Each structure stands twice: as C-alpha cells, then as structure tokens.
C-alpha cells in the first residue's frame, strides 16, 4: 500500500524540488492532489498534479506553467503522494496558490 519516490526535475516547483523524497500511498487520485503515475510513453514513473478527472481518464499537469499536461488512464496511477519526508520542512514555504489544481502538497 505504501511506497517511496524521489523527485527528479523541477516541473513541480515550488511545491516539490528536485531530490525531494515522498511517501506514496496506493489510494485513488483526487482533484488537486499530487500523484505518481506510470508514464504511458516510457517505462518510468512521473510525478504530477491531478488537473482533471473524467471517468477513467485523468489529466496530469505540472505546477510550473511551462510544461504541457497529458492524460493517463486511471490504472496508470501508482498512488497519491501523502508526505514529503526529505526534507520534512523547507525554509521558504511555497507561495499561496489558488484553484483546485494548484494546491501545494502537504508536507
């Protein structure tokens, strides 16, 4: 039910930074939550935020606006990131954001 993931890249800043480590719980995606998913274009995981849910189709987006969003089937979702344990605290807190798709992950 529980797994761990390490973030590689910068598209989820400011909520998540390169090198952050997370606990991922195998629970269904929720709008606005950060999820780990199997990338349909390759044999690796991606970490994104759930932007839209249409039945079994989930649209995943980055927090940074310069990245495109894409859709995956619900079966590709590995789980929801529930805790950033490394670092547990970050000095500069993510700025306040608005909208259901842009909530920072709860540390």
């Amino acid at each position, binding site marked *: *039910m529980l*797994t761990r993931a390490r973030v590689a890249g910068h598209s989820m800043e400011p909520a998540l930074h390169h090198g952050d480590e997370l606990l991922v719980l195998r629970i269904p995606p929720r709008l606005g939550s950060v999820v780990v998913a199997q990338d349909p274009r*390759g044999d690796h995981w991606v970490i994104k935020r759930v932007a839209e849910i249409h039945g079994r189709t989930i649209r995943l987006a980055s927090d940074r606006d310069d990245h495109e969003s*894409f859709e995956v089937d619900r079966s590709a979702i590995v789980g929801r990131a529930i805790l950033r344990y490394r670092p547990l605290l970050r000095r500069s807190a993510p700025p306040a954001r608005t909208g259901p798709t842009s909530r920072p992950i709860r540390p």
Partner: protein
Amino acid sequence: MRMFGRPRTAYAHCDLPCGVYDPAQARIEAESCYKIIEKYHASKDEVFRQRAVIIKEKRAGMVKDHLDTLWHDYFKPEHLEKFPELHDLFWKAAKQSSKVKESLDQAEAAKLLDMIDKIDDIWRKSGGLEKSRVLKPEKKAA
C-alpha cells in the same frame, strides 16, 4: 512495496521527453561562464561586473540542469555497466557547476568544461550522436 533501499525515481522534469540529448547544451552554457569570468576580470565597470556575476550564476545553473536531464533521461543502467565511471563523473560535474556558480576563478570553469568533455566522450561512444540528435542530411551520409 518499496520501503527499504533507494526510493524509485519519479520524473518531474519533462512532460514530453523529446529524445534529443547532447552534452553540447551544457558545454555552451559552461563556455559562457568561462568567457563571462574573463570579461568580469577585464572590466572596471562595477555595473557591468555585477551583471556579469548575475548572468554567470544563471548560466552555471543551466549547466547543472542540462547535465541532470542528460543523466536522468539519456543514460540508462546498461550505460553505467559499460562505463562505470559515469556516476562519479556526473556527480563531480554537478558539484563543479555549483563551484563555478559561486566562483570567479576561470580555472574552475575550465575544469567544468573538461568534465563535460569527458561526459561527451562517453555519450559519443554510447552512440548518442546517432540516437539522440536530428542530424543534417550530409552528416547522416558521412
């Protein structure tokens, strides 16, 4: 369940991996750092020098980003088996990028260029040029 050992990598840096990877991207930015440091020392204009520092720090950060993408997206475990020095090389090059970011010593920038060249050498030996660049027609024929 993966609760022990290293956590699995979840990629956040490229929503659409284009498959184009080349250490030349990092080298251009590192060359920029090298030349900016030279210009910094040649100038007595304080405003120019401040701008040079700001731009140099930005470019050094770009070197690190390009190397990071190359390491995570292009190189695969089979490359590491064939070129075991890769991990150490990338680790040192990332550290050196940070050093160039904070330093105004041109020798540090030269060291970074040398490390990128070593990575480039492995990238070429692994067939990177053919696999991950869109070559001009005459280069394909050559």
